[in-house]
């Protein structure tokens, strides 16, 4: 049997009285590219943030390679070193150059020596097309460039899973293209990815698993061709219609 990389079991999350996630279950296997789609406020980002332990689940369990990470005895730092994340607002370290941004993690967290960290960082910066900008500070870059650096920073940790929280929502159409092409390339190389996105074309063409969320529950999930061409849940149908009619 194949072991799931990430298993989410009966996950619930409330902020005060507001229940954002209600009993969510889903699995991610090695090499999967999972897209989570749905309207704003449906709990997509919260689910992703729970998976990276940036939010503490109210109840339920998350398993990583079969062992629970939501208990008291897991070290969130060690876990997060294996599960990277890219944010909508990039969150690059403003006090560091592009190269330093990509070297800090490997040096401080993985305890690599500087030469090794530098060459890994350069390898990934080259991959996202940002190698010429290693001396720039984040404030000197455009949004698309920042997001590509953020992807390189996450990759430099050589994570098993990479989470993307609406990576293109803060970008203009041209920049969206440059970031998506990098993500497409990563998907083709077999990186396990969970992507919260509003880019339906990306969800359809690149991912092999699509999850549609509404009001804190998973309405429908399955292969992209099933969800996009043959949706069953009325909510999914309505949501997708709105996107295709644009």
């Amino acid at each position, binding site marked *: 049997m194949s072991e799931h990389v990430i298993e989410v079991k009966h996950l619930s999350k409330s902020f005060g009285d507001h229940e954002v996630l209600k009993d969510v279950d889903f699995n991610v296997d090695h090499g999967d590219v999972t897209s989570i789609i749905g309207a704003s406020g449906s709990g997509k980002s919260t689910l992703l943030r729970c998976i990276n332990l940036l939010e503490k689940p109210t109840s339920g369990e998350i398993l990583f390679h079969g062992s629970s990470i939501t208990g008291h005895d897991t070290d969130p730092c060690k876990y997060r*070193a294996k599960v990277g994340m890219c944010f909508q607002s990039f969150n690059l370290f403003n006090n560091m150059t592009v190269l330093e941004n990509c070297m*800090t993690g490997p040096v401080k967290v993985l305890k690599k020596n500087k030469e090794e960290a530098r060459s890994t960082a350069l390898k990934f910066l080259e991959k996202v097309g940002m190698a010429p900008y*290693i001396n720039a500070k984040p404030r000197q870059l455009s949004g698309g460039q920042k997001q590509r650096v953020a992807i390189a920073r*996450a990759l430099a940790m050589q994570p098993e899973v990479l989470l993307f929280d609406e990576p293109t929502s803060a970008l203009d159409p041209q920049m969206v293209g440059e970031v998506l092409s990098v993500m497409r390339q990563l998907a083709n190389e077999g990186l396990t990815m969970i992507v919260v996105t509003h880019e339906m074309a990306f969800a359809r063409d690149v991912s092999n698993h699509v999850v549609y969320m509404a009001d804190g529950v998973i309405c429908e999930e399955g292969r992209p061709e099933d969800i996009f061409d043959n949706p069953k849940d009325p909510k999914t149908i309505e949501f997708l219609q709105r996107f295709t009619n644009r």
Partner: protein
Amino acid sequence: MTLPEGFFPRIGFIIQNYYGSFLSGVGNTMLIALVSTFIGCVIGLGVGIVQTTPTDKEKNPAAYYIMAVIHFILNAYVEIFRGTPMMVQAMFIYYGSSMVFGIDLSMYQAAFLIVSINTGAYMAETVRGGILSIDPGQTEGAMAIGMTHYQTMTSVILPQAVRNIMPQIGNNLIINIKDTSVLSVIGVMELFYTTKGIAGAYYTYFESFTVTMVIYFILTFVCSRILRAIEHKMDGPDNYELVLSDALTMGEGNYRVRKPESNTNRDLAEKKLRSSAESAIEKGNQREGL
């Protein structure tokens, strides 16, 4: 020595006869202000960092309650020293330390102690504000690559927070330069106390304090300009260089075998850049020639 008539001759007379006293007053004032501001910043940084350290009540209840006690003590420190005049604190500590604790502080020890803890109380709040003002996204970015709270603080948050509170550090230094004058109540020979002595000798209060006024202004003005320059330097250059040559990107690690054609492509691109730069220079020269 007779005191000349007129305002300016008198000022000349005072400077000529007492420049040594003025200088030693300035020396003491600046020494106390600089050292105490530095120590105060260290105290403030420490208190500010402790006050912004998160503790998880469920995960580690013991640490949570210890932190609660520490927080209470630190808050009390901040409130008491911000809420009472430094002149009163000076009297209280200088005389109180020997009467209650039997510690015989020298005037200078007392001076450094009072100004430092006073600055520390103000800086603690400034540092706390500086840390809280950093976008939470920075912390999340650091957490997402597995950094601990300590690593996040030292390499991401504090460098940015310290840059942001630099104007406030400068403010505190300037306040301290001026406020050392209250230490005259415990007899510290700083600039104000020295001036009082000089003024009393010939009864030239207006003239002497005119000189001192100018001196204080020069001290604070120079300090504020120096700090501005430091801030500017901390921001780094406005431009960055594109790294197009292979020498730098290859670095120490041979991370991949470069295909020959990609090499020639780079060379071509570089040649193009170089030649366009050269032609631009030539054009410029021609224009100048014309």
